[in-house]
């Protein structure tokens, strides 16, 4: 007796289940195939959806728990003042705030306008941006940071020079000023949803702008909840009857997008789950046929001392075995499919995320459970039969 045989001997229900699975090869193969398809449907749809979501977020950029505050529709200035910024800072408590100035400028090349660009004014650019080339000086007082798209367009590198022309207000009068700046750094490509997206912009120190004019203030909250509280507090402070500031909670949007993706994914996985229900029905059918076919055999088992529960156990072991084989194969196939999806969407075949793996494992578990459940009725029918009747043939 080999150790393997001995092992099987310790699980007699599985010994018989295994032999029975092998006996009706075609039928077992078909049952395994439907389970496999069901598991793949759930796993691939779920994990593929997750990969799709990730790829979307990659282009969108990170949407943190930020609050953006800007001038509201009833604000006569049309911008936020230094006093407003101070108030916002006070109301937001410990949260970091980034006041942002903004203007439009023309890029001058060889004395003529080559295009327009946004100018951002911030004091702490490292709060908002990542650097691709060059570096931002520790005490940044002059020089410009260039967004990646503009850097490509005007062929700007750290050290190159760029001439910008814009209209500023000086002593209540509009003045055209043209300045030449040295490029300190080229900023990394940012996502579409990033705050104060620098791709098509130049970033300058705030002293290059009007003192008292802020386009917006970004409040960096720790999480969506504090972001929400801060947003409420700011609205309460500024907005009475009149809408002096507008507040935009980015965390809200992130949640909504997340939720939308989740619902769509759930819906698709639900469709996948239907295929596993169908698979369960097919397992039930297979087991029912087996129960009828093996009526005599089961009668013998009952006659030689197998209890009803023993018969149920053997039949369930068989159903579960079919489900387990189907689920394992299905899991493997799913991983392969998800690798292809990952490769297409994320550019990395083995970038399985935890959420994606959850769908794969979930599909496999569902496959086994569905088979087990599907086996219950046939097993009970087989066990219920009186052995005398079964043995009469």
């Amino acid at each position, binding site marked *: 007796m080999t150790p393997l045989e001995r092992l099987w001997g310790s699980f*007699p229900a599985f010994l018989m289940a295994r032999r029975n699975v092998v006996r009706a090869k075609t039928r077992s193969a078909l049952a395994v195939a439907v389970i496999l398809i069901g598991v793949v449907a759930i796993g691939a749809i779920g994990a593929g959806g997750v990969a799709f979501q990730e790829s979307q977020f990659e282009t969108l950029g990170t949407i943190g728990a930020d609050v953006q505050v800007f001038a509201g529709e009833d604000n006569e200035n049309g911008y936020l003042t230094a006093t407003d910024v101070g108030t916002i800072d006070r109301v937001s408590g410990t949260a970091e705030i980034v006041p942002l100035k903004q203007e439009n400028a023309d890029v001058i090349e060889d004395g003529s306008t080559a295009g327009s660009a946004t100018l951002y004014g911030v004091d702490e650019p490292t709060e908002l941006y990542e650097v691709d080339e060059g570096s931002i000086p520790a005490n940044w007082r002059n020089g410009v940071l260039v967004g990646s798209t503009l850097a490509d367009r005007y062929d700007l590198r750290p050290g190159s020079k760029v001439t910008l022309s814009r209209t500023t207000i000086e002593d209540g009068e509009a003045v055209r000023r043209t300045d030449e700046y040295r490029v300190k750094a080229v900023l990394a490509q940012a996502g579409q949803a990033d705050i104060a997206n620098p791709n098509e912009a130049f970033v300058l120190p705030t002293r290059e702008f009007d003192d008292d004019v802020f386009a917006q203030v970004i409040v960096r909250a720790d999480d969506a909840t504090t972001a929400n509280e801060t947003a409420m507090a700011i609205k309460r402070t500024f907005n009475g009857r009149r809408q002096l500031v507008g507040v935009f909670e980015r965390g809200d949007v992130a949640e909504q997008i997340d939720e939308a993706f989740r619902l769509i994914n759930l819906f698709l996985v639900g469709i996948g789950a239907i295929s596993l229900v169908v698979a369960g029905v097919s397992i039930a059918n297979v087991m029912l046929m087996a129960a009828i076919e093996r009526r005599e*055999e089961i009668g013998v088992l009952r006659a030689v001392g197998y209890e009803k529960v023993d018969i149920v156990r053997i039949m369930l072991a068989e159903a579960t075995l079919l489900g387990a084989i189907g689920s394992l194969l299905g899991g493997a196939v799913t991983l392969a499919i998800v690798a292809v999806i990952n490769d297409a969407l994320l550019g990395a075949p083995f970038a399985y995320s935890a959420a994606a793996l959850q769908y794969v494992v979930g599909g496999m578990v569902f496959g086994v459970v569905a088979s087990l459940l599907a086996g219950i009725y046939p097993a009970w029918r087989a066990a219920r039969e009186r052995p*005398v009747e079964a043995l009469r043939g």
Partner: protein
Amino acid sequence: MTDSDDGPVADGAAPAPDGAGVAEAVPAAASGADAAGDAATPIISGRDVVKEYVTGGETVRALRGIDFRVDPGEFVAIVGPSGSGKSTLLNMLGLLDVPTSGVVELEGVDVETFDDTEQTRKRKDTIGFVFQSFHLIPTLTAVENVEVPRLLDRTPKRTREVATDLLERMGLGDRLGHYPEELSGGQKQRVAIARALVNEPRLLLADEPTGNLDRDTGDQILAEFDAITDEGVAVVTVTHDDYVAQFADRVVNLIDGTVREDAEAVTG
């Protein structure tokens, strides 16, 4: 149940058929008064056992109120024409079926008092079956088939030893790993007998156990039965074969659901 026609069966002791060579043929039945012939509890006994089948509104009386008793170590042959109720009686002895009326007692306990689980347990512990058409499990090898009644005990090593030993005694030592479809009728029969013995039953029930065997193999089986009766196991076998009937300690002649204690056994 026992109307005057069918009569209180088996009043007198049944003489063993010619040549049975067994001196003391215990009566197949004891009518109330002289029941205390033997002090030992019978392994199984029945009083006024009736079995009726209702099919399509029609009632078939397969057993018409018979009494029986089987003692430990006895070799009883049940003979009778086809349809006379032999298998029905054997099912009753094997706790596979309960009588429509009358009492069947296994080792002194009324089987009616057993629930399904207890019946199953008793079948496993005390009774071995050899079915009329073997009923081997096609997916299991010869030795695994013999092991079936013990598989759930999870003692694979010991079970394998017992099963191998039994098959060797049946002359199938070289067929352990063969599947039923690779065995001849007689070989299947012997596997079925080995399976019936694997749990060391106190009562062995066999429906036509030598039907497919040649004389030599049949003799081997009968010798085996003889050996186990010496160990106190009761053997009850249905047979159409005079040869087997002659081998038995006692012959019960079933005709049309009643026991006939004729000297001439009606076989075939």
